[in-house]
């Protein structure tokens, strides 16, 4: 079977589309890590909850899209805040392994809640993005993928700019590096914690809405998180820019592998990249390797 150039282009573009959503979710992960040094294993499930809350508003309650989306984001922020306050903050002063294991427990709880309320059946989200496939040159891209890419990119651009120039971004990093010191210069450390988790939950929920609109929603959506873990490791656990670049790359790679080798090999390819990175450059492309003071 001759591989046509147009095929490669279309697959690449579609891959970049998915990649932008991986990048967006990766950014949510990085925000939490940058601010609280917590590795949040439940990021994929937070994305899933966002998608299902949106489903609840837009399909269950049949609210119009311009109400459902903000409502979802607000609810997601609340959920993120509650999680941080009740489950994360009490353990932040302890061993980081403990907090990590709490997020593991959280994945189980979130999946269970979704299956309890909505059952394990996959569902479709109501259509709200334009249906017309987008044409770039000769290549066709499904419209949802294209619009997801645009939305995700826009949000990430805003976040990157804000973190680079806003002193809140510095406050975030200061809090992660040394809480006592940050507190003593007047940074509201608990406030930073809450804010980062609420923001991350909102971003993840937005990604969930977009991922859900492209591929449907189900209680197994958290699997998307697996690719996101590879994205943040490749990009560097504390680098937003790294998440962006790695996300696009991994998304593109998975699409190419899926199209030309078969869908079952997608995760295999992603994990091979993980292996290579762990061996060659474990702190990722842009991550900071902290030298421990003795």
């Amino acid at each position, binding site marked *: 079977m001759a591989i046509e150039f147009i095929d490669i282009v279309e697959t690449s573009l579609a891959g970049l589309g998915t990649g932008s959503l991986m990048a967006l979710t990766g950014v949510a992960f990085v925000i939490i890590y940058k601010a609280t040094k917590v590795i949040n294993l439940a990021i994929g499930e937070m994305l899933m909850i966002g998608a299902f809350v949106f489903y609840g508003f837009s399909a269950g309650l049949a609210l119009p899209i311009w109400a459902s989306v903000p409502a979802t984001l607000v609810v997601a922020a609340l959920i993120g805040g509650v999680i941080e306050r009740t489950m994360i903050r009490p353990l932040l002063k302890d061993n980081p*392994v403990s907090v990590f294991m709490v997020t593991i427990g959280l*994945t*189980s*709880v979130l999946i269970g809640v979704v299956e*309890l309320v909505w059952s394990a059946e996959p569902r479709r989200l109501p259509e709200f993005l334009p249906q017309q496939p987008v044409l770039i040159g000769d290549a066709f891209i499904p419209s949802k993928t294209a619009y997801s890419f645009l939305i995700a990119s826009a949000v990430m651009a805003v976040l990157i700019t804000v973190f680079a120039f806003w002193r809140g971004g510095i406050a975030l990093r200061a809090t992660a590096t040394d809480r006592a010191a940050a507190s003593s210069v007047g940074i509201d450390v608990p406030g930073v914690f809450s804010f980062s988790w609420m923001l991350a939950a909102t971003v993840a929920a937005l990604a969930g809405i977009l991922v859900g609109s492209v591929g449907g929603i189900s209680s197994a959506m958290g699997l998307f998180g697996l690719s996101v*873990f590879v994205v943040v*490791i490749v990009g560097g656990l504390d680098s937003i820019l790294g998440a962006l670049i790695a996300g696009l790359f991994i998304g593109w790679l998975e699409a190419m592998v899926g199209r030309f080798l078969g869908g079952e090999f997608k995760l*295999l390819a992603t994990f091979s990249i*993980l292996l290579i990175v762990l061996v060659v450059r*474990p702190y990722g492309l842009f991550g900071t390797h902290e030298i421990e003071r003795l």
Partner: protein
Amino acid sequence: MRVATAKESYAADQGLFKTDTQKVWFGLLLAALVLFPLHGSNYWMFLAVLVMINVISTTGLNILTGYTGQVSLGHAAFMAVGAYTVAFFDGRFDTPVLLNLILAGAVAAFIGYLVGLPSLRIKGLYLAIATLAASVILGFIFLNWTPVTGGLRGLNVPTATIMGIELATPDRLYWLVMPITVIMVLAAKNLFRTRVGRAFIAIRDRDISAEIIGISLLKYKLTSFAISSFYAGVAGGLWAYLFRVVTPESFPALASIFFLAAVIVGGAGTIIGGIFGAVFMTLIPEFLKLSATALVPWFPDASIYLAPVRAIIFGLLIIGFLIFEPMGLAEMWRRTRRYFALWPFRT
């Protein structure tokens, strides 16, 4: 109140049992383990065997996560490796049961070694992600390597036969599982009376100091991971003999969370905690099943909620114990013992 327990020799101080009372209790426990099958019904025997299999697996994970501080999210996948190994060798070559179990452990340990090699070199939670990746890849292999694993349909496991006796029912299988469980738990306890176990704890508590003392972090982390995988493999092999069929669905992702919960709930870093955790966690799904049946008059389809409720409870147990009782049931047990050791005094 406990009195006059001073030791008169170093050997006594380092023995397994600190007091004569402890020796008596242990003896009673052994007696109970031997006499139990004479009175148990089929259901209780099945449960007992399942509990013991989970004790082996939890003890293994405890060595890695509780004592060495490395989190694995793929423990169930290593059990699956053990289960498939037993199914394959006993089914294909009719090899002896004990050999199959050792192979199950060895294959699992080997795969653990491969997974650990790249991911344990770096400090941090990379092992967790790597084991997650490993369990996905292993799942893929189980599903697609049909000539060896039977693909979607899986493999049937012949009855465990030792010296001509068929261990076809749980009450017979008990006599295979029980001694293996006792031996493996004892071996784990012994580990922590030696420098190997001490090295594991040192790595968990402060790995830089451990290195200065001369402990090779990579070597010991890999050893801990290999031991933990070995235990998982043996447990998986016994599981195969109990359930007599292994499929890609036998060890779902939730199972890894089950064992992590068992370690945390029972008490990470203590052998008795591993036992408590396994017993507690095994009984929870049974308890839920009974509740669902009991609720049928009011909620006829209560049982379809079993799976999600189970998931929520496992997660809440992990979170709850980490926040409120981080040293697990073992600590609650220690408190009770302290209370009685000091009674009638208060502190």
